[in-house]
């Protein structure tokens, strides 16, 4: 079975492709990328005027299953992903029952095999129950199918335990993703500490609670020459610390989420709980520093931190509402604003959504190389759409961009050569 995507503007940073050409897909894989491919294809997709990219690799997603199927499932979350052009994602370990033992990894793997519409990779916890006390059986978790480690939602407070975990992860050749937050400094806070929190009378979360822990995590990794990844970088100081470390040759990588480079703390005015996440939206100068860090390469990847919550958990008082927003279905469009504004080239942006996260995770994704799995997204760069609850495939609707008009619409998504989005009516 042959499928030809014709005449699209192909952007594949992994292969330095950035121009109009055709893509031939055969036996679930990329068979050829070139101009005016002449072939008798079973299906031809006309992508004239559209952008064709490797399917997006989102390295920070909460799918909530097993345990909180009312918020999201592997099925609904991956369906949402495809709507956003995301074909591969890394599921975080903070499900109701932490993914911290081989049985939990196996169960999740089975759910994924049975119900996922896209590729889901598994993160296991660094410590049991993400309590920061007892390190998990890292080698066995890997054997069972976990590809990365994170206590996301929490940070391992004790330096000696974190160091030990980094050593074990290094030995097992697994990446550790750090949710860098010192909860002793952020406790009780619900938004960034600053003039806006003062005005709103809300308890602040200082930037120190993030960047001091970023520094600690990097220092520990550097001391044993291990790789470490800082996830959801939100402030200027963290960016500076990561940049310094990279300069010194420390093997650190970092991601940020679209809301950190498109919104600032001022969005919280009005107490919209869909602007409440952790880390919180920071100041305007932080937002600009994140944009700059994407430009200069300090931040390698963009990840959604897709965090679904039910309306019951969000449509309440601000200080009582859950932290987190959904993002799989808006991340491409929100990120494209950087291209429209001239802050990044299209190719630079797509690298941060595809090749870079795949490389960091060591997975054979995020590329249109011949022989690679044919995971492809096709989108219109300039088509606008209104973000409304009804457009989401996610079970949850807690988007920070509700009511906004975004530019850039996913038209088709392919996984292993099969057109999986749009869905049949």
């Amino acid at each position, binding site marked *: 079975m042959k499928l030809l995507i014709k005449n699209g503007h192909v952007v594949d940073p992994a292969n330095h492709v950035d121009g109009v050409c055709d893509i031939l897909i055969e036996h679930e894989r990329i068979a050829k990328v070139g101009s005016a491919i002449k072939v008798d294809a079973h299906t031809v997709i006309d992508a004239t005027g559209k952008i064709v990219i490797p399917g997006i690799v989102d390295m920070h997603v909460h799918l909530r299953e097993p345990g909180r199927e009312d918020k999201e499932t592997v099925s609904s979350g991956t369906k949402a992903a495809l709507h956003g052009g995301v074909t591969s994602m890394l599921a975080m370990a903070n499900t109701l029952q932490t993914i911290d033992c081989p049985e939990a990894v196996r169960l999740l793997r089975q759910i994924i095999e049975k119900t996922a519409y896209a590729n889901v990779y598994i993160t296991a916890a660094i410590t049991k129950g993400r309590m920061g006390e007892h390190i998990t059986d890292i080698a066995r978790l890997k054997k069972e199918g976990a590809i990365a480690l994170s206590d996301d939602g929490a940070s391992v407070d004790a330096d000696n335990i974190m160091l030990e975990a980094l050593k074990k992860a290094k030995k097992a050749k697994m990446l550790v993703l750090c949710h860098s937050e010192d909860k002793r400094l952020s406790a009780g806070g619900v938004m960034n*500490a*600053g*003039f806006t*929190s*003062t*005005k*709103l*009378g*809300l308890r*602040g979360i200082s930037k120190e609670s993030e960047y001091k822990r970023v520094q600690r995590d990097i220092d520990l990794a550097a001391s044993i020459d291990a790789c470490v990844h800082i996830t959801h970088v939100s402030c200027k100081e963290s960016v500076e610390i990561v940049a310094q470390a990279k300069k010194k040759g420390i093997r650190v990588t970092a991601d940020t989420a679209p809301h950190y480079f498109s919104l600032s703390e001022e969005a919280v005015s*009005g*107490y919209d709980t869909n602007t409440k996440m952790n880390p919180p939206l920071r100041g305007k100068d932080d937002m600009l520093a994140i944009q700059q860090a994407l430009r200069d390469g300090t931040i390698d990847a963009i990840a959604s931190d897709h965090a679904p919550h039910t309306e*019951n958990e969000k*449509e*309440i*008082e*601000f*200080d*009582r509402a859950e932290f987190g927003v959904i993002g799989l279905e808006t991340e491409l469009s929100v990120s494209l604003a950087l291209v429209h504004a001239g802050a990044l080239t299209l190719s630079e942006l797509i690298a941060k959504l595809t090749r870079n996260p795949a490389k960091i995770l060591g997975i054979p994704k995020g590329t249109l190389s011949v022989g690679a799995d044919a995971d492809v997204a096709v989108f219109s760069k300039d088509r606008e759409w209104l973000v409304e609850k009804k457009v989401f495939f996610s079970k949850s609707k807690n988007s920070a961009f509700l009511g906004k008009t975004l530019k850039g619409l996913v038209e088709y998504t392919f996984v292993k050569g099969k057109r999986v989005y749009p869905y049949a009516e």
Partner: protein
Amino acid sequence: MKWKRKDLLGLEDLSREEIELILETARSFKEVSKREIKKVPALRGKTLVNLFYEPSTRTRISFELAAKRLSLDVINIATETSSVRKGETLIDTGKNIEALRVDIIVMRHSSSGAAAILSRHVRASVVNAGDGWHEHPTQALLDMFTLKEKLGKIEGLHVSIVGDISHSRVARSNIWGLTKLGAQVTVCAPKILIPLAIEQAGVRVTYDLDDALRNADAVNVLRMQFERDEVGAFPKQLEYFKNYGITQERLAKAKKNILVMHPGPINRGIEISSDVADGPHSVILEQVTNGIAVRMAVLFLVAQANEYIKR
């Protein structure tokens, strides 16, 4: 100038003209309070609910009296007796109250922003009677009303607010209202009780009480809420009184006619000495009296502007 808002959530969003309109309207309602018959039929047949998620006596009673003097029917709901304890959400409670055909909801809540959230989900008018650390607009309005009545104007006045600014909705509402009306505002407290970046609101910050009192035409003394001190970081009570308590000795160094205000309830010997509270500078009880006129004005204006109520 015509009032157009269905709710009163805070003073930050209001224009100078809107604040002046409330104060002007309050002046005519104060006249009503001096009559033998203190009641006007302005809102007869309408209903007001006092929805109080935090204990309060003076604010609730003040709203209740203000409502009754406008001929509103009043229902009081306190969390102890409501289904809130059974886990009903704020929005559900609001919608249930609205289903009872209530016209105005006056709400006190411990969460900042609660009034704003409620107002988005009900057609009834919402009047914020204090939300968390955020705002307590009617308190600031009655403070300003008292200042204007006593000193003839607000423009150009020097007003100092002393006490726990960080956790105070009264301070925030006063800062917005006073600065909009052209007063020079100074906030004074130990550093730990000054909120981050408050200078950006256009106020002067000082940690020295004498400095705060030196040029002040009025000092608004906040209640010290030691119960908020979870980690023992606040100064101790005696130490606080020594450094920040308003006493006769301190006032001797201030302007001769300085006004002393307090939103109540006062802690004698903690933030204010008894002789000051009961002395010639104090307008604390006049504030209480003025609270009714100001709240009548607010209820009257929001009801007038709400098509749902006029239906």
